[in-house]
């Protein structure tokens, strides 16, 4: 029987994969994709507990997260274009002008 514990465990694995991708990958696009993965891990977690607790508020919140993630993806892609125009690359470690 698949219960909430399995969903949470899956969500945790997905979140960690996304987190490692965000922190480790040099490619800005991959980072963005990893970020989506983390969002969806959170969504999965929200829905799992919504289902488990029979409270629809979790699923509503998941819809909001998907909306925000869409907006974030749009901004992220805009940043990528700006970076490419500025540095002619999508490597994230090239964007270090704010180094102290």
């Amino acid at each position, binding site marked *: 029987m698949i219960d909430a514990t399995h969903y949470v465990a899956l969500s945790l694995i997905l979140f960690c994969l996304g987190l490692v991708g*965000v*922190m480790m990958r040099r490619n800005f696009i991959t980072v963005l994709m990893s970020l989506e993965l983390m969002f969806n891990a959170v969504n999965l977690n929200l829905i799992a507990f919504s289902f488990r607790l029979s409270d629809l508020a979790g699923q509503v919140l998941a819809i909001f997260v998907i909306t925000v993630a869409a907006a974030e993806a749009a901004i992220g892609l805009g940043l990528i274009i700006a970076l490419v125009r500025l540095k002619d690359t999508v490597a*994230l470690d090239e964007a270090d002008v704010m*180094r*102290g």
Partner: protein
Amino acid sequence: MKLYDFIWLVPLFPLLGAVFNGLVSNRRGLSKKTTQTVALLGAGAAWLYGWAAVLQWFFTEDRTEPYVVKAFTWVTGGDLTIADGSTAAVDIAASFQVDPLSAVMVGFVTFVGFLIHLYSIGYMHGEPDRDYARYFSYLNLFMFAMLTLVTGSNLPVLFVGWEGVGLCSYLLIGFYYEKGWCAAAGMKAFIFNRIGDFGFLLAIFFAFHFFGTLEFKGLFDAVASDHGGHFGTAATIVGVLLFVGAIGKSAQIPLFVWLPDAMAGPTPVSALIHAATMVTAGVYMVARCNYFYQLSPTAMLTVAIIGGVTAVFAATIGLVQNDIKKVLAYSTVSQLGYMFLAAGVGGYIAAIFHVVTHAFFKACLFLGSGSVIHACDGEQDMRKMGGLKKYMPTTFWTFLVATIAIAGIPPLAGFVSKDAILAKVFEAGYTDLNHFGGIYYLLWFLGLAGAALTAFYMFRLVFMTFYGDFRGGEEAEHHLHESPWTMTLPLQILAVLSLVGGVLIGFPGQLFHLEGWSFIDRFLGPVILTHGEHHGHALSFGLEWGLVILSVAVAAAGIAVAYRFYRIDPGFTRAAHLASRFPLAYKLLLNKYWIDELYAATVIRPTLKLSDLLWEFDARVVDGAVNGTRNLTVGSSWMSGIFDLEVIDGLVNLVGTSYDVASRQFRRLQVGFAQGYAMVMVFGAALLLGIFFVVNL
């Protein structure tokens, strides 16, 4: 109109002259003609107005009381408590008085003063215009001061004149101030006068303290109404202190040394100020304040002793001097001594009489010597003169008349007044005045000896100057000339007065059983305070004549010795021989008893030492303190600057530096990698979660 209501005009006229000559003529360098006209007008107006006013007063007023004219209120002070416990107001008026004594003084001061102004025109004609104006300005100013002195009706006004004549004396002695020794002589005169003035000033204070008034009339009445004799001490204090003033002004021992040096001034000045008028101010003042002395035997004796000793002391110095003016200067000191000798035995009238006759013959002698010096082109050493008789006859005969007068040959002026003095002194011994009879006899003897010395040194002067052959070299001989009329006219007038003046004003009636024939005795009588003791002469007729014969014999002896040494012995070998036989005595006299050196050693040098010391103190300690304060301030502000720079600025910089250093460390946090920040965020969140777990366990 009563002219004597405006008696203050008499001093005012010369003051106007002085102001004009001093402020206009001298500044603008006006011509000599303008200067001398103004000066003569000032002195002449004083003379004419003074005589007219005095004559009118003489014939209209009661002459036993002084006629006081108040010009204006000078000082209005509060009440002071005086010696007897009552209060007296300090109200001093600039008031003037006409009384017999001031009438006599105004009479001869204005007259002799005018003559000397006239003489000065001739004597000073070689000066530049400005100096000429300066000279006459001083001379007029002197007339103003002297006339204020003799007409003032209280001690403060007299003091104004007293200081004024001292000032003019200083200015005129130092007239040739480019020569250092003239300026020094002026300073010496002024300082010696100041010493005396100190006594005078104290006397004024004491007079007010004891009597509550400074008016001569008030003082006279206060003293005259004293029947209990309880003013005796007060009179002694005031009298002696006044006499200290007189000692300074009239050059008596011990303050006489300034007068011989005062000869540095132009000769007419020596005649007017240092022989005829100013130096007699002391005698005038003692006669004016006779009531104090009449009450105090001590003060009288002091005056008599100082006068008598000075008379002989100065005469001995005069014996050997070679400078023609120095001889006359010591002669003046000696004659002033006679006057004080007379005043000291109560013969105030005889003293004033001698003042007047002395003014005639001594002014004549000084003016004569001026004429001689003028002819000899400034030479004053008698050893380089001689035989001037034939070059300057007028000067010679006037000088001779005055010399005979001072030597005391009857019936010339000097004889009459000097004999009156000696008779007075002898009388004081004879009547055992104040029980000091023995001392008065001794003083009389000194006076007699002085008379012989006077006759000797005066004829020595005449023989050395006018007889024999000229010793000044051939070139100087060509320049010898008689002086212009402005110089010889005063000489002739004064010579005539020396001849007959004595008999005219003070006929010695007692010698001819004609008591009361002496004008001056009757005239000045009311001025003198008498204690009601019997008047007239205590000496018998025979004794009077005996004294006269004795003094004439003594004078004749003096002349004879001078004749033997300096007339029939043209090379003065006998005099030189005598000097070499008594070298010590000769040196003593020639060096004026080393009095100047004595003062230099005892007073002047210690004073200079003291002022050096004070200067050192000033330079080292006072200046040192000032500089020390400065150094302290500089040092402390330097330290304060260091503190400011190091500590205050250091703190401010430390704040800045610490931020700098800290921010250097903190900026390392800003790695600039988005992933770095993410990592920090993740670890931070993990940390928070960890803490959360630990706390919630």
